[in-house]
């Protein structure tokens, strides 16, 4: 890799490069978060987004709105209260038994109606299966712009939302705007934004909105829900210690060295995208922009070069250690400590060294 | 219902494309099978493309073929650890309307060539490997079996353009598998640099190009060669040695390449470059003596699969495409006379090859591979050291009288190789060259 960072500027030739907001959009105000409530549980990404929304709203001098939608008595009131605790000023509450299970049609109808009535200028959703399923159909219904998997959200002087995300290939970032359409929509993956402080006892306004939904007009029926067995879950996204391996390990078999170290540290293990593409590990172990974003206290990357799409998935870690023979690998731009040695030889030594330091008398967990 | 074509061409490299194109243009139905994901995905070359031979197949290729630079300068270097002694030839005459040699990037060139082939009417199946040749009761080849379901297909003649490793021909016993002494393993990297930097470093403008070919201690006594070719925005840098030598010495191709790149004469040329591609390939080195039987009942073999590579002059792709063209022309002659594709009738192909530069050149150099190989330490270690010392001696002005310097040099040569050795080497080299 050459030393100087390439700063390429795309030649913008779009006609609508300037902000010329049509009159009817000027009334759109406030920053909204779609609160992802399913089976009584709010996905934490909603609160991470609430924190972001708070920052954006403060800059714009507007309010933070939370769209809370679900069946009555299925956690909607609790979700509303929590929304205030995490920074919302207003909760737009829609309770309807037809919203009990997530279905694209009912939720799209509800959210677009809320938008059309209350007119937010910015609408944020978590980039989860639900959020992505919903965001695309809402954006198309509203014929507005949607930027997916943003790693950074900011507001320009002209009050436009600047949504930054990695471009294809992962070596560059790009900032995308929806200048002349409202609401400006964006999705953000879980753990990309930090969890904000929860303010117990904070209150706000609740706007109850009644929606007319007819079950007969909704084509999708939820026949049942099969919960995952808890053993299937990997806690990678929320682990405090993560060890990950990349192509530098030269073979899927060597990922067991990563697992061994993770075991000794009481943490989780993961890998870079190319490893998943090569079939060395299942997709849920993928760390990076299109895999899991992690915010551990300690992240050890073994044999990972650190393409942008990986780096944005781990930047939030408190301490990053990179084991990589290439002293110019991009991962060193975000790592705090580095060891320029072959990971395959070093990992076992590191595992033993940690074992001696932190649990010299404890029994090891069974290898995962 | 088994599909039937006039010809099946196995392989979409230089030889295969040349054959398929020529056959299709002459109106034959052609099925081309390529095991790679796309035509060119399995091909690796320096690469230098020889216009004369391509002109005979696609006369106006310059209109749209992706060509990097046309070559105006050639540097031959003999290197030891710290120096190189070179002979350069640079001529403005090479800046002609229809230049004679170009550097190309195979992945792009092959894509273009394959497009031409398909436009000519060839049906190309990629990701399809021919597993075995099919023969009738009389031992004549009647088609191939591929690795796709129900993958049997018949043809009057099969053109084996399957490359140096070609398993189809060896499996069918049509030729022996390549021996380690007759193949070289070469590795290559693409080093990306801004166009202006390449032009400044190599003293070229516009589309002019330079080739550096180097022998010497860089191959650690093994028969081998290193090279740098200038492309528009990158340099192709590579090294190759005989497989048998690698096996004997335990050296690795990329180890040699790293040393080559670190050489004080080479390193400055690559300074600041971004390495973006790394590839390796086998190159036939056996020369004339390794060329197998070129045709049989219902089959012909062309290109690297037939060891048609002139390692001394580093010419391979032109021999490949010429053999493909000539084989296609022979097949057409048989077909248009409504004859059967027997070995006797297809003999037009080897006969035409004998009359062409291909076999004439290979025949001329038939003893060179053996000579270089058995004497590799002399040619690739001893002489480069001697030459380097002689040159340094000559150029270092240190008050030593010239006559003394000259005697020292002559003495060094005599002492190291002996008069007998020197004469023998000279004679052998001259003989092998002629």
């Amino acid at each position, binding site marked *: 890799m050459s030393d100087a960072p390439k700063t390429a500027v*795309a030649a913008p*030739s779009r006609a609508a490069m300037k902000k010329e907001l049509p009159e009817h959009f000027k009334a759109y105000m406030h920053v909204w978060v779609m609160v992802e409530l399913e089976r009584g549980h709010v996905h934490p990404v909603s609160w991470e987004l609430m924190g972001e929304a708070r920052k954006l709203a403060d800059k714009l001098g507007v309010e933070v709105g939370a769209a809370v939608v679900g069946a009555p008595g299925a956690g909607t009131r609790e979700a509303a209260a929590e929304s205030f605790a995490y920074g919302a000023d207003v909760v737009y509450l829609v309770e309807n038994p037809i919203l009990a299970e997530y*279905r694209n049609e009912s939720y799209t109808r509800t959210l677009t109606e809320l938008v059309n009535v209350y007119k937010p200028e910015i609408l944020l959703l978590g980039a989860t299966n639900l959020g992505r399923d919903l965001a*695309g159909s809402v954006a198309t219904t509203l014929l507005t712009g949607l930027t997916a998997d943003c790693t950074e959200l900011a507001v320009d002087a002209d009050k436009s939302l600047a949504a930054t995300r990695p471009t294809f290939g992962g070596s560059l970032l790009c900032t995308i705007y929806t200048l002349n359409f409202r609401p400006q929509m964006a999705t953000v993956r879980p753990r990309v934004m930090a969890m904000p402080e929860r303010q117990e006892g904070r209150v706000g306004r609740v706007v109850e909105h009644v929606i007319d939904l007819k079950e007969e007009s909704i084509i999708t029926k939820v026949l049942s829900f099969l919960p995952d067995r808890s053993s299937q879950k990997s806690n990678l996204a929320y682990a405090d210690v993560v060890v990950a391996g990349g192509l530098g390990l030269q073979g899927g078999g060597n990922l067991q060295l990563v697992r061994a170290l993770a075991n000794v540290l009481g943490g989780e293990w993961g890998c870079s995208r190319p490893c998943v593409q090569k079939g060395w590990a299942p997709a849920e172990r993928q760390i990076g922009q299109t895999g899991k974003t992690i915010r551990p206290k300690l992240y050890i990357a073994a044999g990972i070069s650190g393409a942008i799409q990986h780096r944005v998935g781990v930047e939030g870690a408190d301490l990053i250690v990179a084991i990589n023979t290439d002293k110019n690998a991009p991962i*060193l731009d975000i790592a*705090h400590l580095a060891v320029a040695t072959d990971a395959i*030889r070093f990992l076992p030594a590191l595992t*033993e060294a940690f074992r001696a330091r932190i649990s010299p008398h404890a029994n090891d967990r069974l290898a995962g | 219902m088994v599909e039937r074509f006039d010809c099946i061409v196995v392989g979409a490299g230089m030889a295969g494309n040349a054959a398929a194109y020529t056959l299709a243009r002459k109106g034959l139905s052609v099925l081309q099978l390529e095991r790679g994901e796309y035509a060119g995905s399995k091909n690796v070359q320096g690469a230098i493309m020889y216009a004369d031979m391509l002109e005979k197949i696609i006369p106006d290729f310059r209109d749209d073929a992706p060509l990097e630079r046309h070559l105006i300068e050639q540097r031959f270097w003999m290197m030891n650890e710290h120096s190189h002694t070179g002979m350069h030839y640079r001529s403005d005459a090479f800046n002609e309307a229809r230049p004679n040699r170009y550097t190309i990037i195979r992945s792009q060139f092959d894509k273009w060539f394959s497009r031409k082939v398909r436009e000519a009417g060839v*049906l190309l199946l990629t990701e399809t490997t021919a597993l075995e040749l099919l023969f009738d009761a009389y031992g004549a080849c009647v088609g191939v079996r591929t690795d796709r379901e129900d993958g049997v297909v018949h043809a009057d003649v099969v053109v084996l353009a399957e490359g140096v490793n070609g398993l189809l021909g060896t499996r069918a016993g049509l030729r022996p598998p390549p021996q380690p002494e007759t193949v070289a393993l070469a590795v290559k990297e693409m080093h990306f640099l801004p166009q202006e930097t390449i032009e400044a470093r190599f003293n070229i403008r516009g589309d002019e190009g330079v080739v550096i070919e180097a022998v010497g201690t860089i191959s650690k006594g093994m028969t081998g060669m290193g090279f740098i070719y200038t492309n528009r925005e990158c340099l192709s840098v590579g090294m190759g040695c005989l497989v048998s030598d690698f096996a004997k010495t335990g050296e690795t191709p990329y180890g040699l390449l790293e040393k080559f790149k670190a050489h004080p004469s080479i390193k400055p040329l690559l300074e600041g470059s971004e390495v973006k591609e790394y590839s390796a390939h086998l190159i036939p080195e056996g020369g004339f003596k390794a060329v197998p039987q070129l045709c049989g009942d219902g089959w012909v073999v062309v290109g690297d699969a037939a060891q048609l590579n002139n390692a001394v002059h580093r010419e391979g792709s032109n021999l490949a495409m010429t053999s493909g063209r000539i084989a296609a022309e022979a097949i057409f002659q048989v077909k248009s006379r409504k004859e059967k594709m027997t070995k006797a009738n297809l003999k037009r192909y080897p006969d035409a090859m004998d009359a062409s530069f291909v076999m004439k050149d290979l025949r001329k150099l038939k003893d060179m591979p053996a000579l270089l190989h058995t004497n590799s330490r002399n040619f690739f270690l001893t002489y480069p050291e001697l030459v380097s010392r002689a040159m340094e001696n000559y150029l270092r002005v240190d008050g030593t009288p010239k006559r003394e310097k000259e005697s020292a040099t002559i003495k060094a040569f005599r002492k190291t190789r002996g008069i007998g050795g020197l004469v023998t080497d000279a004679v052998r080299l001259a003989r092998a060259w002629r």
Partner: protein
Amino acid sequence: MHFVVCIKQVPDSAQIRVHPVTNTIMRQGVPTIINPYDLFSLESAMRLRDQHGGEVTVLTMGPPSAEDALRKALTFGADRAVLLTDRFFAGSDTLATSFALAQAIRKISEAWGAPDIVFAGKQTIDGDTAQVGPGIARRLDLNQLTYISKIVGVDLAAGAIKLERRAEGGTQVLSSALPCLVTMLEGSAEIRRGSFADALRAARAEIVTWSAADAGITDLLKCGLRGSPTVVKRVFAPSPRAEKAAQIEIKPRSRDTADALIDALFDAKPAMAAELERLAAGV
């Protein structure tokens, strides 16, 4: 039954190789491939076709070279391929793309019958937005079912489909009426290897090529740059941090280097030692 599968030709970012000496990733000029997620949808469509009879039409919007992706799709066993290509589509974001593809699907319906299911890939490896599928569904007023892990079955007579969809913490078992739009999860159905006959047919096939006008798209303001509400204003390399990572000195014995690393680690984060002990003892 008629199935329309939307695919996209993308650069193959997976063709990353590791340099054997420096162990660095080689990021070279990459060839194009069919977006891998699309293949799961294509296979699912073909399986349904094999089961119930009918045809699979593959559709893509792209430059003329996208024909390669379509031919590859035919090699896998699709029956028909349509290329929507026009300079007016250049610069389309996902909204403009779904507009054009939806219109092309209407045209396909006119020519070869309305599709029972429109399949799209879960997301592309170059855009990653997962927006085009939902966009098409909305514009064609098709019921939208994404993140489908399994198509349980189709009841032709009832015009219904039963599927399993991945949600947070579990799987929804859903039923829907046909027609609908479906995006399949990776791993749901491995793409088959086309037979020799499929490969030959693909090599011989005439790819139906439509310009915007051929597809009946008259409102060019909804296409390309002008039809895209999002605009990329800046492309940049992330500014490198001022201080690079501190390199731990390599000692002859790996174990010594490891200890040096752990020392530096605990130096930088004194609380880490206790934290790790807690975690290690935790389970």
